[in-house]
């Protein structure tokens, strides 16, 4: 819980780091819903914090709310159960015995929450497995604002 609350307020940290540049941090826009799409509650599942921080900032720019960042399949299921997000941005390769496809499958079946896979080059077999879990879509790493916006539009 501590971690989650800490990440929901990253702007303070950036403010502390360099006050001038952070006068208008993207995170502050997160509270104002985008005119084109409704604001989504999003769970990020990604074990590289440099990537997840970036994703989080992009989501906030797009007016969505990040309900948590999970680093493993088990954590993803735990957070999804607790936070009931609208959508999960799921990395396929995760540290641990289960991967993102397993997690997405379980979250969809147990909670009816869809996932969008966010991954680097995926081999055909893995992609086949991922498709079988009926994802909302696929997004290529590294994420860009446009890609993310397009990907999420399907989840709305």
């Amino acid at each position, binding site marked *: 819980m501590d*971690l989650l609350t*800490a990440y929901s307020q990253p702007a303070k*940290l*950036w403010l*502390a*780091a*360099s006050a*001038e*540049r*952070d006068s208008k941090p993207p995170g502050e826009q997160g509270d104002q819903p985008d005119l084109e799409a409704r604001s989504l509650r999003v769970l990020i599942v990604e*074990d*590289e*914090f*440099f*990537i*997840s*921080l*970036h994703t989080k*900032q992009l989501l906030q720019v797009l007016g969505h709310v990040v309900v948590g*960042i999970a*680093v*493993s399949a088990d*954590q993803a299921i735990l957070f999804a159960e607790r936070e009931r997000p609208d959508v999960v941005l799921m990395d396929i*390769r995760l*540290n*641990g015995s289960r991967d993102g496809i397993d997690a997405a499958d379980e979250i969809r079946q147990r909670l009816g929450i869809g996932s969008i896979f966010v*991954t*680097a*080059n*995926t*081999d055909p077999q893995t992609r086949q497995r991922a498709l079988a879990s009926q994802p909302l879509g696929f997004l290529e*790493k*590294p*994420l860009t604002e446009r890609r993310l916006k397009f990907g999420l539009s399907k989840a709305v």
Partner: protein
Amino acid sequence: MPERVFNRGLPPQRIRTFLVLFALALTLPLIGLAVLAFNQLAGLDEEETERRVVQVAQSLVDDIDRELDRATITLETLATSTALAKDDFAAFHEQASRALRRDKAGILLIDRSLQQLLNTRAAYGTPLPRTVDPETAQRVFDTKQRHVSDLVIGVVSGQPLINVEVPILVGKEVRYVLIMALDATRFEQLLQSQRLDPQWITGITDNKGIIVARSERHADFVGKPLPPELLEQSRAAKGVFRATNVAGQGILRATVRSQIAGWLVSATVQVAHLEASRRRGHLFAGAMIGTSLVLGAALAYIFATFMARPLERATTSAIAIGLGKHIEPIKSPLAEANTVIEALSAASLELKRRQEHAAFLMGELAHRAKNQLAVVKGMALQTARQSATVDELVEQLSQRIQGLAESQDLMVRQNWQGAWLSDLVKAHLDLFGASSRAQIEGPPLFLNANAVQNIGFALHELATNASKYGAIKSPQGRVLVTWRGPGDDGRIHMDWVERDGPLVQTPTRRGFGFLVMTDLVAQAVRGTATLDFSPDGIHWHLEFPASHALVAAHND
């Protein structure tokens, strides 16, 4: 040596070619030897035939001379007759007729005028002509010696015959010549009695070259002259010679001269017969060689197939491997080929495995590269957010990228499996030239890739901080990096403690680096981290689940 020959333009040949050459190398000398041996045998055979021809001729001469001697003895016995001494010719006629009995012969008596006084072929008292062979009779009168005539035709019998003539001496004078006229057919019978094979021809020729008797077609040839050329050869020759006989046939001939009559006695065998026999020999030998060649070739073909087929399979397999196909091991009759094909089969499996592994690695590499680019992108954006100036951004970003590179280097060396924690600590301290001043202690711990990358980030931020404000900045400063575990709690505990550095002041602002050291890394490894700013030096503590360690020494 073979390589040298085949490197000089001679194209490589298939194994079948060499097997054929091999078979020829074995058989040709044997065939050559067989032909040589056969010819040698044929030569011996010919010598044997020649010896036999001479033997037959010699044996005939002996028989003829014995016959003439027998006639002489009969005549000489009659010469002592008292009836003859008393010139009682009628009684002597009677006596001579008895002596002849059944012989095909006649006995004649002639006087110095060469007038026949009696002839057993005619009844006593019948008027008789002069002798038909005055020459021989005259010679007996002159020499007082026995003589044998050449062939003559009897006046009384009208038959071809020869005369054996002996002198009848009264005192030192030859008063009469006693003659036994032997029919030429007697000599023919003599020749026949040798019982030679039909292809053998024997013959007797008198001193004038007239045929006295012949073993074959006697009646046709008796009284005929021997062809002059043959006569010449017969007279001149010693031993065996080749010639053409009176019937125009090629012959092998030996001639021996009779000691008594001076006749030429010949034994001949037809060359045609000898050649036929030799041809049969050749044919037999040829058939033998041919049969063994065919048999040998058939066997050689079968055995060659046992060798060539598996080798061709091996060759096909080798070509198939080049095309990336899988090869099934087979059981062929050739052990070496089996070994080769087994090796090729194993190689094809290994090749397939490596190709798959290479494809897997390529995919893995592509994935990791792209993922790392996403990490670097995030890193750049986060660094940019907290940098006041472009210089600061460039410095911090390049250092963070360098730190990431250090962690990655260690993992590449371990095939992306992870890295030893001690190596990770050393690498990040080395980046600031501080590993010699550090005390690194802990059990051997091999961390997975995720932990290596994240703890690497934390270590990098710690070292950066120490070099700017802490123990690495001052020359006497020390860094103690220790870890322990996994203990009963299943967690690994790691500490970074700085000593003897500048006096530590709790910072008023907490930047991104602080967040990395405390929250971000800890969350990424599902652990917790604390950072204390005690005046002696900062103390960073991280604990994380032991599942991040792939290999850990037992810690009691």
